[in-house]
């Protein structure tokens, strides 16, 4: 078999994803189920194209790490601090109650208490990857239920660390040997704690004070791939550091994300990491699907299905009761309970850790791993069930509560390019109380602007993903003030295609560029020639110095402006088709202008009753 070759493996995974996900999406099942089914199909039980690839799953778990980094980026520290209640209360109670209940059930099945507790703790955890990916896809992350789900999942991520520490103590008839297996090293506990604190402090310090300078240097190279490499390096570096001190990499990168949520490089980071996250998560879901051992299922289908239903039921009940206790509405509570009622990827980690250290026998864990995988497979179906069953009731929205933190919703103006030109418009808007999101790809520029308290993000505005992250979908206006006609035209084109409802106010380098913009479909009143305004003002003042009364000079300038704008709209098509004809027309129109001003004088002389005489 050439299935050993990396390329062939990649080929199989990609085909599976590309074929199954669009089908699942079209059938309304969501991408997660598509990936999981793809995994089942290419897995050992059906096609056998891939085996039990634990290596692949481990590698793909990095998608979860990246996802938490991205979630962190969207979550400012202040918002996280406000969520501390739900995280500790809701999350803590969920883990505690579910662990207790499952342990009790285990005891009823005549397990020794240590085994029951290991199983209880492990099954209390839910799947961060599946839940968050599904909620994201549905756009429910910002709802009350979505926030609650996230709080619980975050607590579970933290809870894994003490669980890993406690597991060795739960070995039946444990020895000193098994205890030391629980700790990464033979170092005393306080040193470990110190390392953890140092690592977290390091992340915060680097994220707050150092990273900006590194990104600035990298951005100055103007090499996109180096920026991408730096972003990846950041995430992977933190993951490595966290593993070294025995913390969950997902937690570490989440923290880094939160620290960077205020950074000017936030949007650029997001759009760089996003595709990697998506692919790795997909790979992860496929490997979960492929790992389901259907032989165990078919050996004792009734027991396995009973356990699947039992696990979902127990978790559902605990979650729903908690939702009532935390005063969620009925619908939010239902979504919250359905969403988190599965086992999670941490179960694979904890079970394999426990069996390797002889804490629990594989006879117990193997069926349970199948159960967990099956509950993960069922989760998207449960959410679809929720959606169908509670169709008319959308989960209630907490947007109002966190309104000030959700920039996308309340930043009506996007400014691309914050140089001399964009700045004046931007400052005028800001001083009248309008919030603006500014994109600029000059890093040293941004440094200065940030110093003055502006909200400026680094990034190339002509990238659709970046525009979307900056809120182009909900914004009212985009001011295009970047330099260079090619770049401006490109951005106009992209914005018009992807955000047809966004009104564009566009800088034109000169008159011929204005023609090009008209051709691109920008309306004439939305085109601003860079030097036109100031040149007109100069002309007006020159007239005054030549003896015109101030208001007469002003009116002359404004009449000139109006005429000039008319000429541009009248002649722009001819400019492209027949340049000679265009030139002669321009000359005629220029004469018209002379006559206009002359007649203004003449009228006044001939008709004493005319206005202002």
């Amino acid at each position, binding site marked *: 078999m050439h299935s050993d070759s990396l390329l062939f493996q990649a080929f199989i995974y990609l085909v599976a994803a590309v074929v199954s996900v669009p089908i699942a999406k079209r059938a309304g099942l969501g991408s997660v189920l598509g990936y999981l089914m793809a995994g089942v199909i290419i897995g050992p039980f059906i096609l056998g194209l891939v085996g039990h690839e634990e290596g692949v799953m481990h590698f793909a778990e990095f998608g979860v790490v990246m996802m938490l980094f991205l979630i962190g980026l969207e979550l400012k520290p202040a918002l996280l601090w406000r969520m501390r209640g739900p995280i500790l209360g809701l999350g803590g109670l969920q883990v505690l109650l579910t662990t207790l209940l499952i342990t009790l059930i285990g005891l009823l099945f005549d397990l020794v208490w240590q085994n029951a507790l290991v199983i209880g703790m492990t099954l209390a955890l839910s799947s961060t990857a599946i839940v968050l990916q599904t909620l994201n896809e549905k756009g429910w992350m910002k709802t009350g239920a979505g926030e609650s789900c996230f709080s619980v999942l975050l607590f579970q991520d933290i809870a894994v660390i003490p669980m890993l520490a406690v597991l060795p103590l739960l070995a039946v008839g444990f020895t000193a040997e098994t205890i030391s297996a629980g700790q990464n090293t033979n170092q005393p506990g306080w040193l470990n704690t110190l390392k953890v604190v140092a690592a977290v402090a390091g992340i915060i310090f680097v994220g707050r004070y150092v990273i900006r300078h590194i990104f600035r240097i990298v951005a100055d190279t103007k090499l996109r791939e180096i920026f991408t490499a730096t972003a990846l390096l950041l995430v992977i570096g933190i993951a490595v550091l966290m593993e070294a001190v025995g913390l969950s990499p997902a937690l570490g990168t989440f923290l880094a994300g939160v620290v960077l949520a205020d950074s000017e490089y936030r949007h650029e980071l997001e759009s760089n990491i996003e595709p990697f996250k998506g692919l790795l998560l997909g790979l992860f879901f496929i490997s979960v699907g492929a790992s389901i051992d259907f032989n165990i299922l078919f050996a004792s289908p009734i027991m396995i299905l009973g356990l699947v239903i039992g696990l979902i039921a127990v978790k559902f009940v605990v979650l729903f009761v908690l939702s009532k206790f935390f005063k969620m509405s009925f619908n939010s509570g239902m979504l919250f309970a359905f969403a988190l009622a599965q086992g999670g990827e941490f179960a694979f980690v904890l079970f394999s850790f426990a069996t390797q250290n002889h804490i629990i026998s594989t006879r117990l864990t193997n069926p349970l791993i199948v159960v967990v995988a099956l509950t993960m497979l069922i989760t998207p179906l449960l959410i679809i069930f929720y959606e169908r069953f509670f169709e008319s009731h959308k989960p209630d929205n907490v947007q109002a509560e966190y309104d000030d933190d959700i920039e996308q919703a309340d930043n009506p103006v996007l400014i691309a390019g914050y140089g001399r030109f964009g700045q004046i418009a931007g400052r005028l808007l800001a001083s009248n109380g309008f919030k603006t999101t500014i994109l600029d790809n000059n890093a040293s520029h941004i440094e200065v602007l940030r110093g003055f308290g502006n909200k400026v993000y680094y990034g190339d505005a002509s990238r659709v993903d970046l525009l979307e992250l900056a809120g182009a979908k909900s914004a009212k206006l985009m001011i295009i003030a970047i330099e260079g006609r090619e770049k401006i035209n490109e951005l106009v084109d992209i914005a018009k295609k992807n955000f047809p409802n966004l009104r564009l106010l566009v800088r034109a380098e000169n008159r011929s560029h204005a023609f090009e913009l008209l051709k691109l479909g920008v309306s004439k009143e939305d085109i601003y020639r860079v030097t036109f305004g100031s040149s007109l003002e100069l002309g007006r003042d020159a007239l005054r110095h030549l003896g015109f009364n101030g208001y007469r000079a002003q009116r002359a300038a*404004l*009449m000139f402006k*109006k005429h000039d704008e008319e000429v541009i709209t009248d002649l722009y098509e001819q400019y492209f088709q027949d340049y000679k004809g265009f030139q002669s027309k321009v000359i005629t129109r220029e004469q018209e202008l002379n006559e206009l001003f002359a007649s203004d004088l003449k009228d006044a002389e001939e*008709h004493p*009753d005319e*206005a202002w005489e």
Partner: protein
Amino acid sequence: MNKILVLFAHPAIHKSIVNRRLIRIYREFKNIVFRDLYDIYPDFMIDVDAEQALLLEHDIIIFQHPIYWYSCPPILKQWMDLVLKSGFAYGDSGEALAGKRLLSTISTGKDDTDYATDGVHNHRLRHFLLPFQQTAVFCGMSYLPPFVAFSSGSRFDQIRLGEHLHQYRIILTALSDRQFDWASISSLDYMNSDMQLFNFYQQSIHA
């Protein structure tokens, strides 16, 4: 239905509750065209041709504005100076406006008792509107009794505001009616000084 053109002049509409509420009523009428002069001509460069064309299309013209120093805000005066030209509005063959009607819709922060011979302003509000009345007459238009929202400056006078809005809606309904008996209101001081006369239209609104 009579076609009505509203020329609105308020330099700071974001500060005027009564005017914001009054102009919202126009949306209920399909026969009314509303023009906010300060919004359309922020640089005072009034498009004379366009304004004259609009005048020709309408039967009733409404000047809506606050009273500042016993007159209208400057853009309306600029509009009059430039648009009501000889040869169009008056003078040789200047008959474009003949037979049309002009209504002043006025908001004032003062009470009607201030506008009296013994009040702080020494004259009645109608007297300060004489230039508008004579402009109309000079252009061959008839000047309707003005609609005045007195005491509209007080943001706390919600009851009075509600009353004004109610009155204005009824009066606009009446003005829209081609069969309206114009003679019945000719003796009114202010359009809204005797709402009894509009009873018929009051009922049609509630119907």
